[in-house]
């Protein structure tokens, strides 16, 4: 980036955040819903970007964590817990399950890891679908209420969006701090060269587990927002296809780039909406567009900036 670009970075970022925070006042409720969904996916995508983009692991199971977070939130809301407890609980449970999923990652690498995480996602789907006493089975869980915090009701679409967006910004700041800390450097070392990392005292075991667990915890928070957003959760929202969609978000945006998931989520959440002019054809167009986009820029949208920099 040029000097001018660099000095403009902060003002542009702050303006973008303000604009996104007040945007819903000019949108209809469906627009606000889509925008909130975008923010939820950005959170889950940031987590996956840590696992995949920064720590160099492969995960095809992020939707399972979104599901675990959502079901945890749904169940706790039914039991009357405060939302102040629900969000940390969803995050912690996903953190622990993520640790568990990290263990196969220590044994298997690359494509095997892709399969292991994919199998994990399918297993979670089966549990969501079959354990009716807990999850409501295929019928799912209905009427999950919007949260109440300190006596403030977030039931209006715009209010709930602002809550979600606020949490997204806080989590983004935390992620940025994590990536700037020595941990961020250790994740990159793990991704770039695990053998060298071990030889300079960086425990690949510890950081692999952490990359999975923190990535999962982000999806857990996303799930805890997803449940009250849609008000109704069912197993079909947490399939492998959704995990692939989240991976798509990270890759299309640009893996290992901070704003990759935010941009990628625009493509995954909004592009299908914009393509509605194509009526029935839109999913077909969407699918082939992904192929073309990958072939044209395998490094993601944000890699285009690099291409212009160094022609």
């Amino acid at each position, binding site marked *: 980036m040029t000097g001018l670009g660099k000095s403009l970075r902060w003002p542009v970022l702050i303006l973008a955040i303000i604009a996104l925070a007040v945007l819903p006042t000019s949108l209809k409720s469906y627009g606000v819903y889509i925008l909130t969904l975008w923010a939820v996916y950005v959170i889950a995508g940031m987590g996956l970007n840590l696992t995949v983009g920064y720590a160099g692991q492969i995960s095809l199971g992020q939707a399972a964590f979104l599901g675990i977070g959502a079901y945890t939130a749904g169940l706790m809301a039914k039991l009357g817990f405060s939302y102040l407890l629900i969000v940390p609980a969803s995050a912690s449970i996903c953190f622990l399950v993520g640790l568990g999923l990290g263990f196969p990652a220590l044994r298997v690498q690359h494509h095997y890891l892709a399969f292991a995480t994919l199998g994990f996602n399918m297993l979670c789907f089966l549990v969501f679908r079959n354990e009716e006493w807990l999850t409501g089975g295929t019928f799912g869980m209905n009427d999950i209420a919007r949260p109440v915090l300190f006596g403030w009701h977030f039931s209006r679409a715009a209010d709930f969006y602002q809550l979600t967006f606020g949490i997204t910004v806080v989590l983004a700041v935390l992620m940025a701090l994590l990536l700037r800390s020595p941990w961020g450097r250790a994740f990159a070392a793990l991704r770039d060269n695990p053998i*060298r990392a071990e030889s300079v005292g960086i425990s690949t075991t510890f950081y692999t587990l952490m990359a999975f667990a923190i990535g999962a915890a982000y999806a857990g928070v996303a799930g805890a927002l997803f449940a009250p957003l849609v008000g109704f959760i069912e197993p079909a929202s947490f399939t492998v296809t959704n995990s692939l969609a989240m991976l798509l978000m990270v890759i299309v945006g640009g893996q290992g780039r901070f704003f990759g998931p935010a941009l990628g989520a625009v493509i995954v959440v909004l592009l299908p909406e914009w393509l509605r002019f194509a009526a029935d054809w839109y999913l077909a167009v969407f699918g082939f567009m992904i192929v073309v986009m990958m072939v044209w820029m395998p490094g993601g949208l944000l890699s285009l900036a690099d291409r212009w920099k160094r022609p």
Partner: protein
Amino acid sequence: MTGLLDVTDIHKSYGAIRAVDGVSFNVAAGEILGVIGPNGSGKTTLFNTILGQVAPSSGKVLFEGEDITGLPPLRLARRGIGRTFQSLQVFGKLSVRDNLIAAGQEFLDTPARRLFSKPDAGLGQRADEMIALFKLGHVAKLAAGSLSYGQQKLVDIAMAFIPAPRLVLLDEPCAGVNPALIEDLLALLLQLNSQQGGSFIVIEHNMDFIMRLCGRVMCMAQGAILAIGPGEAIRANPAVLEAYLGD
């Protein structure tokens, strides 16, 4: 005979092939030991058994009097044994400065405290000193993977020295490096040895480099030690000459 490193009767065989066949030697504190020998004489396998990349079939390795035989590389690093690699091994997408900090940060504090420490983990100054010493100032902010072969080699070596290890194993530091840089490297290693005081073991084919760097030289052939002693004596040893000429 308790030196810094005591290697006793190491064997490593792959099926019927005895790659290392009964090697014993020791390294004193502050010493630079050279290891030479024709290709396939077992030098790298010996390194790998000491460094925990492969477990020896039998034998014992003591470091500062403690048994470290077969410990994994991570544990050895934490005990103060550093290494460089024959092939390039840097963190390609991190900057040179970040490579150096990454090579030292895990030796400070606990993981939890590192999470909240300054981004440079308090190692910024140390990294900048190393960058100055290795004359890498003009590339310090570039991604290590984008540098020339020789520069990456320097980064690799500098990384090993960041935590001031008590023993460093260097695997062919001169391989693929241009002659001018080799002179610099020689001076650097001698300076690091006198300043930081660690011991080095150096595998190298460049005889001149070995002779000027190392107090003692060990020559290996067919998995065993052919001769060990002061450089001049090894150079004049007829068995060593034959091992090289007969190769």
